[in-house]
């Protein structure tokens, strides 16, 4: 232990001397990416506003089949007092018409709907479409730089107090969850008190109190639609960015609270698993509600009848009735979108660039391709905690000490030939040499502040020797000093996400290049969820990670740029003593980021980022591997896709394109209320893509266990929905699916055909409308 400390001290003193020896330069200027589309910037207030409109509209079939039959209240009663109105001037193709299906493909699988307890819904924008957040930052990519404050969403307005410590937020008034229950401050307070501030629960985004300032931050309810934040720091504008996706998207308290261990006899595990993937119609504030789930096949979502956003003519959004999430692989998403069996893809895997470009260039291609700036980057992140985070063994601890040594980090970065790494992904102008730090496509990027240590294997070996590593047993790999880890070979475990080919390709490149340097790097490819939990627990030496929003948008997730809190930074967290053992330059980075978070002067923010970039890249804080541009592939038939949308800046493109405004101009506009046969004839070919082609008039309903009198057992399904004795199973299942036209065909039974016997609806909105696929509610 003493020897470790001595070595650490030597390293700390040794680093200023080392920087004279290694030649630093700026990274080479990359070529232009062909086909990049330009964004036309707008002012922030031209996108949306909140106001009451004289009249509202909805799809005709909703009026005919649900409102007129008494299953739903009229649209004006379902909307809040002043809904969110999307301004037509900001819509690329103007106001839209109803109908059609937006088809996504994802590679992950939904674990369940309890995002707040840490379950994934499968990524790919499915949770973005379901769970709305307090503020919204994704559309800021089109907003002028000086106007960049988050857009209001569930929080319609906010005001800072005179001293800057209190932030009073007004929520949208009169909005309802998709099951008809009122949305209000109680949902926020439940999320704050019982999710964020419950140490035994970790939401999927790993949001903690530290995300909002740590100790000293409080949130309290003023009235049903007003809450008040108190922050330790004054005018902390950055926290408004933190209240966007994924950190503050509250869940339905009326559904979650009864399952929470504090208010029930559930254990935390039971709470987490209380809403498995087959539990349908989970109440959401988003535009679509999950109504169908077939394992390894598809998740189908239908429009939320209580969605609180409209266009300027009063049409309740979304325009698109149905959302599909086909469960396949991430690589298949690109293939299917290019082929035309899916509609949307973030082309982020460079292996597919060339083939996709070639196909999309043909006139007959169903999808179009648009490249953005170089905002996808990969970094090697070293675990810097030497004080016990992750409880490393002797070898692990020795590796951490090495990670903290600047000579070692410089040796590693100089041993990497980034041109070769880039070419292993895709040849051509797409990639750039990336030494680390901010993405070159970011508006805060400054090439002259970026320090790049060029590839030089000889110099790298010399630096390794300087760090005290020599090959004592002549097997080609350097060894630890005799006092550390038994003088064995330096073995480092590199943790990588196994679900992406790009991650694995880069990892293999790193391993083979560092072998020439004399380091033995061992690959540990783990699937996404496991990688997340290992990372959170600190159980890794090195982690190969794709950059998230902080290195591109900077204003989003800024706290991820340096360890400003004990548990906020991804690869450097507090040990058991609760303290982070910061290296000297890290303290400087923390100071810079803290200042950036608090300042409101835009010029100062630009200067601060230049300083951050210099200190971070000079000290090889993250070892950059590769950087490239991504492309948005979207089916040509959709309208209102903003020009130049990047696939990832403040958030993923699924959020940035504002899907609830996207529409498809169907061939015939005369498809108003009609019988099934007429509707089928008049709708275009895309109607065939809707799930259950024959059942295109469906809406989400209230989950059975939330209706009055329903038993609570989502695992086994609601037994009271089984047909009673004497009824044919097939006959009843179509009726209990709630298809009004079918029940009318069978003799005009309306409304209550789908309620269990004896159940009384709480209010008119709670009557079941739906589409629950009974087969999947039965236990297997």
């Amino acid at each position, binding site marked *: 232990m003493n020897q470790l400390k001595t070595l650490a001290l030597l390293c700390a003193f040794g680093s200023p001397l080392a920087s004279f020896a290694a030649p630093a330069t700026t990274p080479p200027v990359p070529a232009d990416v062909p086909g990049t589309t330009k964004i036309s910037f707008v002012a922030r207030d031209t996108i949306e506003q909140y106001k009451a409109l004289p009249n509202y509209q909805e799809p005709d079939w909703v009026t005919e089949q649900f409102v007129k039959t008494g299953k739903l209240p009229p649209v004006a009663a379902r909307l809040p007092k002043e809904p969110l109105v999307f301004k037509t001037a900001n819509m690329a193709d103007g106001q839209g018409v109803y109908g059609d*299906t937006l*088809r996504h493909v994802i590679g992950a*699988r939904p*674990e*369940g709907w309890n995002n707040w307890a840490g*379950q994934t819904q499968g990524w790919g924008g499915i949770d973005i479409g379901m769970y709305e957040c307090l503020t919204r930052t994704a559309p800021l990519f089109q907003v002028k730089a000086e106007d960049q404050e988050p857009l209001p969403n569930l929080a319609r307005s906010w005001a800072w107090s005179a001293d800057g410590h209190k932030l009073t937020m007004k929520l949208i008034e009169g909005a309802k969850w998709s099951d008809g229950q009122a949305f209000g401050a109680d949902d926020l307070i439940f999320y704050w008190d019982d999710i964020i501030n419950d140490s035994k629960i970790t939401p999927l985004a790993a949001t903690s109190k530290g995300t909002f300032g740590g100790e000293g931050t409080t949130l309290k309810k003023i009235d049903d639609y007003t809450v008040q934040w108190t922050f330790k720091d004054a005018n902390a504008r950055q926290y408004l960015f933190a209240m966007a996706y994924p950190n503050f998207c509250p869940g339905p308290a009326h559904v979650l609270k009864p399952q929470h261990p504090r208010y029930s006899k559930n254990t935390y595990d039971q709470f987490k*698993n209380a809403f*498995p*993937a087959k539990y349908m119609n989970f109440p959401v504030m988003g535009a679509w509600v999950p109504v*169908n789930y*077939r*394992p*390894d*096949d*598809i998740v*189908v979502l239908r429009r939320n009848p209580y969605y609180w956003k409209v266009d300027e003519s009063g049409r309740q959004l979304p325009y698109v009735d149905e959302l*599909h999430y*086909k469960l*396949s*692989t991430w690589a*298949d998403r690109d*293939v*299917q979108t*290019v*082929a*035309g*069996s899916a509609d949307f893809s973030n082309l982020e895997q460079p292996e597919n660039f060339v*083939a996709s470009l070639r*196909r999309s260039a043909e006139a*007959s291609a*169903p999808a179009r391709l648009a490249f953005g700036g170089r905002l996808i980057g990969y970094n090697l992140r070293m675990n810097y905690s030497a004080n016990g985070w992750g409880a490393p063994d002797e070898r692990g601890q020795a590796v951490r000490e090495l990670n903290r040594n600047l000579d070692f980090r410089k040796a590693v970065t100089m041993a990497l030939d980034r041109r070769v790494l880039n070419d292993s992904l895709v040849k051509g102008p797409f990639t750039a040499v990336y030494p680390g730090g901010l993405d070159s496509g970011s508006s805060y990027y400054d090439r002259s502040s970026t320090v790049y240590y060029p590839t030089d294997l000889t110099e790298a070996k010399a630096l390794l020797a300087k760090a005290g590593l020599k090959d004592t047993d002549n097997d080609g790999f350097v060894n630890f000093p005799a006092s550390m880890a038994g003088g064995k070979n330096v073995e480092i475990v590199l943790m990588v996400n*196994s679900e992406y080919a790009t991650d694995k390709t880069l990892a293999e490149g790193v391993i083979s290049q560092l072998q020439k340097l004399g380091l033995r790097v061992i690959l540990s490819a783990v*699937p996404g969820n*496991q990688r997340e939990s290992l990372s959170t627990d600190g159980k890794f030496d090195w982690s190969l990670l794709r950059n998230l929003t902080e290195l591109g948008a900077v204003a989003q997730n800024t706290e991820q740029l340096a360890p400003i809190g004990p548990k906020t930074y991804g690869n450097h967290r507090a040990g058991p003593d609760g303290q982070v053992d910061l290296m000297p330059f890290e303290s400087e980075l923390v100071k810079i980021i803290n200042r950036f978070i608090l300042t409101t002067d835009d010029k100062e923010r630009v200067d601060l980022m230049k300083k951050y970039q210099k200190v971070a890249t000079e000290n090889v804080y993250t070892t950059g591997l590769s950087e490239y541009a991504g492309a948005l592939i979207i089916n040509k038939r959709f309208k209102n896709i903003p020009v130049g949308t990047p696939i990832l800046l403040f958030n993923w493109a699924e959020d940035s394109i504002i899907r609830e405004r996207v529409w498809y101009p169907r061939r015939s506009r005369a498809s108003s209320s009609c019988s099934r046969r007429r509707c089928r004839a008049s709708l275009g070919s895309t109607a*065939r*893509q*809707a*799930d*259950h*082609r*024959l059942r295109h008039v469906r809406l989400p309903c209230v989950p059975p266990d939330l209706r009055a009198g329903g038993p609570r057992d989502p695992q086994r399904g609601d037994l009271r929905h089984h047909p009673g004795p004497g009824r044919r199973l097939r006959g009843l299942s179509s009726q209990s699916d709630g298809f009004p036209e079918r029940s009318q065909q069978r003799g005009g039974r309306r409304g209550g055909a789908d309620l269990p016997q004896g159940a009384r609806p709480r209010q008119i909105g709670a009557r079941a409308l739906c589409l629950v*696929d009974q*087969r999947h509610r039965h236990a*297997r």
Partner: protein
Amino acid sequence: MWISGIVMHGDFGHSLFYNKPVAEVVAERLPRTLALAVVCHLLASTIGIGFGILAATRQYSWIDSLLSFISFLGMTVPRFLMALVLVYLLVFKFDVSEIGNFYSPAYGGAPWSFGKFVDLLQHTWPVIAIATFGGLAYNMRVMRGNLLDTLNAQYVETAKAKGLSRSAVVLRHAVPNALHPLVMYQGVVLPYMLSGEIETAIIFTLPTVGPAIVGSMAVGDVQVTATFMLVLAATLLLGNILADLALAWLDPRVRTRLGVA
């Protein structure tokens, strides 16, 4: 503990990846896989045996050479390569848009109908074609070899001498005797049918047993892997029993030897 769970409670464990009981995962995939595998196997067997009969009765002719060539291709070209080439051709050359998975979303949850059956065929024909092409080779070669031996036997000459038509000689006398090794082979092939189409199923994203085994191994979902291994072992035993019974039915000599009438 896992075994006692199976024996005493019928509980195969819990899948960490799917977040549900392993029994459910297996029950979802097994019927589909068996259905697909049986179809592939029947096609491969009948076509393979048919080719074998053709090749043997026209030995050394151009038909024989052609069929042998086709069967060698099927045996040697890797199935994942065939699958990838097929995907590329379908998507990029023939503009086929519905690819991957068993059904398109429009039919997935819908009740059975002719349209749904057509949709199923549209999605699975590449997998069936590749499996059949790969599987017919063995059947063809074995059938051809055995039939050539049988056609040289004395009882075949007797049959010809009796004046039976050529097809009756071949089909009623020679082929049943040449089938024995293939019948035994059926028993061994059953577990292969379950897991054999792993590569093709992965490329065409068909959620069957094969990808589940590979996926669970990659993820470390131990109980799923172990359960599927158990299933494979059980099917191997079952397959062999069925093959023995089939052989006894086919070959009277086996019945007599066993003491059955």
